């Protein structure tokens, strides 16, 4: 009896001991900042659902749908994501107001995917001062990836400057004696990429014979194209957003000008640019890409694309697969989920930033084969590889290997 009692006590106490030991070690691992708990991770977001850039609102809706899918699958390490997304109408003043609301009233763990150069510029200082991650901003402006001055801010898509540099290399190799006319949108997008192009040309910057910018308020850009043609250029670089990209492609073809045509990535969607511009007019146009185009038949049997299209059917029936913004939101959300998975039970803001800066060869479903996300403590530019492509028939033909253009350390 005594002996039995002793055994029982010993068994019980050792079990209790083991339990205690286990729970203390678990406690040691679990660390939370505001916005995270055993059951929930609260993510904040601002995006223009209304106003001049409301076309990008779809990105926010896609992210919300993606998190819903993740939650339906049981969440991340057992925690559900609460996605709080506000409309900033593409207005920097509103962006600041909404971000403060996210941080101070909704108490989110971090801000994810805020869109647009103006809005992100406006909230960058505030978030960095408060040490709250401003993760994966939806703009390619180069300033969102400078880890020294803004250690809490990270970009996602390739920086516009990278694109300019890569195309400069291509132009030098293919047409060393070419004359370049640059047509660009008069904002950060245009100026950043123009700078990249000039940096990439280096000593050969004199190849640029004409530069002309347009404002988004202009109804048509015909006059610019006529002027560019008159400059005698045989390489045409069009740094433009979808509507103007389509107008430029159409006008260049209409006036019988046949330059080597380079179109910036933001204006290269098949459904939103090439088809409206006219498939015949768009033949031979060059561009750079990092993501797959969902309506391009060449990805019909691609695993990632199948997952994406299934997701669209189940969780985002409102999205038009032709819209590249939809795939953009999906890819961004997938990346942030990866960061949260890596963060495990240490959901502090510092660890979120640390994990975001330690992504290794991560490839979201929607990125081109060979393009991978890599970050480090000195590299805050997640996507830095692009592939050249040429518009042939009804789709983009990707050619050449992924080209790296490192801006970060």
């Amino acid at each position, binding site marked *: 009896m005594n002996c039995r009692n002793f055994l029982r006590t010993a068994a019980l106490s050792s079990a209790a001991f083991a339990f205690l030991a286990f729970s203390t070690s678990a406690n040691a691992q679990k660390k939370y900042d505001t916005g995270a708990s055993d059951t929930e991770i609260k993510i904040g977001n601002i995006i223009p659902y209304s106003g*001049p850039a409301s*076309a990008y609102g779809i990105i926010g809706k896609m992210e919300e749908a993606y998190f819903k899918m993740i939650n339906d699958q049981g969440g991340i390490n057992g925690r559900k994501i609460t996605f709080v997304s506000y409309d900033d109408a593409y207005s920097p003043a509103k962006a600041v107001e909404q971000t403060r609301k996210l941080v101070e009233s909704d108490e989110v763990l971090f801000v994810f995917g805020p869109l647009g150069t103006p809005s992100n510029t406006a909230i960058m200082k505030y978030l960095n001062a408060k040490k709250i991650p401003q993760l994966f901003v939806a703009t390619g402006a180069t300033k969102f990836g400078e880890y020294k001055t803004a250690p809490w801010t990270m970009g996602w898509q390739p920086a516009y400057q990278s694109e300019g540099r890569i195309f400069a290399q291509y132009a030098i190799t293919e047409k060393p004696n070419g004359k370049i006319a640059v047509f660009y949108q008069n904002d950060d997008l245009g100026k950043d990429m123009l700078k990249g192009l000039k940096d990439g040309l280096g000593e050969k910057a004199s190849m640029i014979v004409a530069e*002309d910018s347009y404002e988004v308020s202009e109804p048509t850009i*015909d006059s610019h194209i*006529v*002027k560019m043609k*008159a400059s005698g250029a045989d390489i045409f670089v069009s740094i433009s957003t979808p*509507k103007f990209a389509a107008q430029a492609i159409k006008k260049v073809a209409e006036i*019988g000008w046949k330059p080597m045509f380079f179109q910036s990535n933001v204006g290269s969607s098949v459904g939103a640019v090439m088809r409206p511009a006219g498939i015949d007019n768009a033949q031979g146009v060059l561009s750079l890409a990092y993501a797959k185009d969902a309506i391009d038949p060449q990805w019909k049997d691609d695993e990632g694309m199948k997952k994406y299209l299934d997701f669209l059917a189940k969780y985002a029936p409102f999205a038009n697969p032709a*819209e590249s913004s939809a795939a953009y939101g999906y890819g961004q959300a997938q990346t942030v989920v990866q960061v949260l998975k890596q963060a495990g039970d240490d959901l502090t803001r510092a660890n979120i930033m640390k994990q975001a800066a330690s992504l290794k060869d991560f490839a979201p479903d929607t990125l081109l084969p060979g393009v991978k996300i890599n970050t480090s403590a000195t590299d805050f530019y997640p996507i830095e590889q692009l592939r050249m492509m040429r518009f042939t028939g009804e789709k983009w033909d990707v050619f050449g290997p992924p080209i790296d253009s490192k801006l970060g350390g």
Partner: protein
Amino acid sequence: MELFTNQVLAGIATGAIYACMALAVVMIYQAIDHLNFAQGEMAMFSTFVAWQMMQWGIPYWGAFALTLIFSFVGGIVIERALFKPLAKAPVLTHVAGFIALFAIINSVAGLTWDFTIKQFPSPFGSSPFLGSQLISTHQAGMIGVTIILLVLLFIFFRYTRVGLAMRAAASMPESARLVGINTSWMIALGWGMAAAIGSIAGMLIAPVVFLEPNMMGGVLIYGFAAAVVGGLTSPLGAVIGGFLVGVFENLVGTYIPGVGNELKLPIALALIITVLVVKPNGLFGRAIVKRV
């Protein structure tokens, strides 16, 4: 010299867009004595309706005719529902109404058809016109339609009873009522016609600038400039104003360094102000004399 000719031709082609829009602006001004800020959005919405009908398989001209009817009725409904109750309200109330209408139509179109640009077919094709690569057959067609519209409007306002009654109702409502004109319905009719003309403008402009909810933003400002330059009371003036603004804008953009890029839109605004200061009635408008 080649650049000069090319810019002038391109300017005329763009001018046709402004002229179309300016006609709609003048039309509404004739009817209600105000500028309608939602004019461009109404035109954009009509164009989407036409596009939608074509997606459903209705041939171009069928969709064109149906859209005209839809816009005409739509214009009248907007007037009856929104602006008739405001008839006695001050101008500012009207302006607020126009801006509200602008925002509502823009958002509804975005919600219904989303913001990706859409290709809109042209009945004229887009091959080079008479061997010139600078003006396409579509642009030539657009100039043609603008001129036909202009002639029709001229005849309407000068020789038809309804047209005369409408002018009377706008310029002297009280006297018009005394001679038995139903001024209230004349205003509604003006809205209907302005909406219908706007829809034609929209359908002609869309093949060039592509169809999307914000396609009329810039166009309307230039349309206003064209109408003001030509004179808000003169359809002929509006059309000539449209071509002038188009050509002027291109030449200034090309030959005055520094102005070209950043200041293209302000050129339109500068034109409006200059004309209003120097010749308030525009180049072709009649002087408005008011008895005090």
